[in-house]
């Protein structure tokens, strides 16, 4: 049976990623309206989700080794993301066209 070679990630890299994640956590709190008063209107949720996605990406790439792993695993991960986008995009398409259809404006 074949054995994939395992890439050893230096401790310093792990530390940097940890610091990055902590920074992004602080940033999430800072852009939260009840804490800082920062208000981007309809973009509030988008900003929070964007930061969370970057954090998830860092965890997947470094702590879960996707960056150094067999590219097939990366492909499977990206396919999952793609289908999530399909779910959101088609549902959004229905809702947005439904609003246009029903709106009297």
């Amino acid at each position: 049976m074949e054995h994939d070679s395992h890439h050893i990630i230096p401790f310093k890299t792990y530390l940097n990623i940890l610091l990055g994640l902590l920074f992004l956590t602080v940033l999430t709190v800072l852009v939260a309206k009840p804490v800082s008063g920062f208000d981007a209107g309809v973009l509030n949720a988008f900003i929070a989700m964007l930061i969370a996605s970057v954090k998830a990406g860092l965890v997947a790439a470094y702590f879960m080794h996707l960056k150094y792993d067999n590219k097939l695993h990366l492909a499977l991960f990206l396919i999952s993301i793609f289908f999530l986008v399909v779910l959101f995009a088609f549902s959004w398409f229905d809702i947005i066209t439904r609003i246009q259809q029903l709106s009297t404006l």
Partner: protein
Amino acid sequence: MSASHAEGKNYLNWEKGLWSWLTTFDHKRIGILYMITVMVFFAVGGTFAMLIRTELFSAGPNIMDANQYNQSMTFHGAIMVFMVIIPGIPAFLGNFFLPMHLGAKDVAFPRINLISWYCLIVGAAITLVSLIYNGADTGWTFYTPYSIETDNGTSWVVFGAFVMGFSSILTGLNFIVTTHKLRAPGMTFFNMPLFVWALYSTAVLQVLATPVLGITLLLLLAERTMGVGIFDPALGGDPVLFQHFFWFYSHPAVYIMILPAMGVVSELITAFSRKVIFGYKAIAFSSVGIAVVSFFVWGHHMFTSGQSEAAGILFSFITMLVGVPTAIKTFNWVATLYKGSIRFDSPLLFALGFLFLFTIGGVTGIMLATIGLNIHFHDTYFVVAHFHYVMVGGTLMAIMGGIYYWLPKMFGRMYNEFWARITFVLIFIGFNVTFFPQFILGAMGMPRRYFDYLPAFESLNKISTFGAWTIGVGFVIALFVIVIAIFKGEKASDNPWGAKTLEWTTASPPPHENFLETPVVTGGPYEFR
């Protein structure tokens, strides 16, 4: 030859006692556990079906009241979908034969394989707890807002389905890794039997789609217990959003049910035509094609439930595309039969039954995908007939064919061919007598899910109920045929059908680790002539 094999040891007598079965990591034994589980649930779900049809034998209340009818319908649907048809082929036949088809000793994660069976059992037990709380009456789709408001055991059924979803995900994950990592030397992707291609495509669906159902059901539970307001319009939610989430899983789930059945049919048709399958790559890629397209069609369940017209048109168009890979398979199967040395044993009869019934199910599916027709047909018995032609006419016919085909390998015993053919005749005729009148009833406007109907629909309903009883008799006889074969059947040779896939090169029943020596593959799976 190993010492254990010389002593007549196989996976059935490798270890003894109930505990050895409940703690086994052997994929074959876990497959048998699934077989027993699925058969028990099928008996329960089938009993509910008989009760429903008996109630509908004539207009007005007959053997139950409206509330009991709604509960029978819900349990029939939930049991048959989550506990029978979804695990039916992948977890039972797939578990047993995927590693053998690949020339492997077991699946990649044997312990996870066992956990997946326990997830099914625990999920089913949780579902049954609902009976203490006056059952559930939402139908297996748990549509909001009713499923939020109804005050009974719905939460238990929803949570049970959530737990059973893990069974499906873990099985799918195991199959993907097994297919990638445990193929015998020389077993390239294009040397794999088509059943493996079908199971692989199914596994991708199980892994990608089932988590969405899990999240959706959790959101529904949160809605019921905490009123979070995602699906409840009174709290700013959108009930149609529930349908989007639900069908994003549940339409691919239809293909989780049918793709493995197509894989079984590919095996049966080539084995009993004694011919190389026509269009191997076309059938293999069409499995993947169906799996991919199935993710983009869920909105066809929602043409009349508030979805926008623009989204409806989009989903209608994409749904039509499913017909392309499906037709590719059907034409290739027919072309395989052409000029084959056909043996009309019961497995092939069931495969031919599949071709006939699934084609009707598929063509009526195209009719339902047409928005204009759907407005008339939606929520009528036309839809009920359509999806039973796909699920029962497709999947259950393939399961029956697969059981008869592989029974000699699984248990080393032959079944009684005469009685097996009788079961085919009863199930096939009974099925058409049950469900074909429902197309007519639907076109006449008889709504589905109702406890009662207008007197004008009575004669066709009577015919339908007679058909259901005929199916019931057919399956009871089939149970006897299978059980008698397992315990008293004639001893089977290693390859009674003269088939070419790897599982037939080993003993019947197979030894503990499937093959005495790891097979080396030098050609395709169907090298007849």
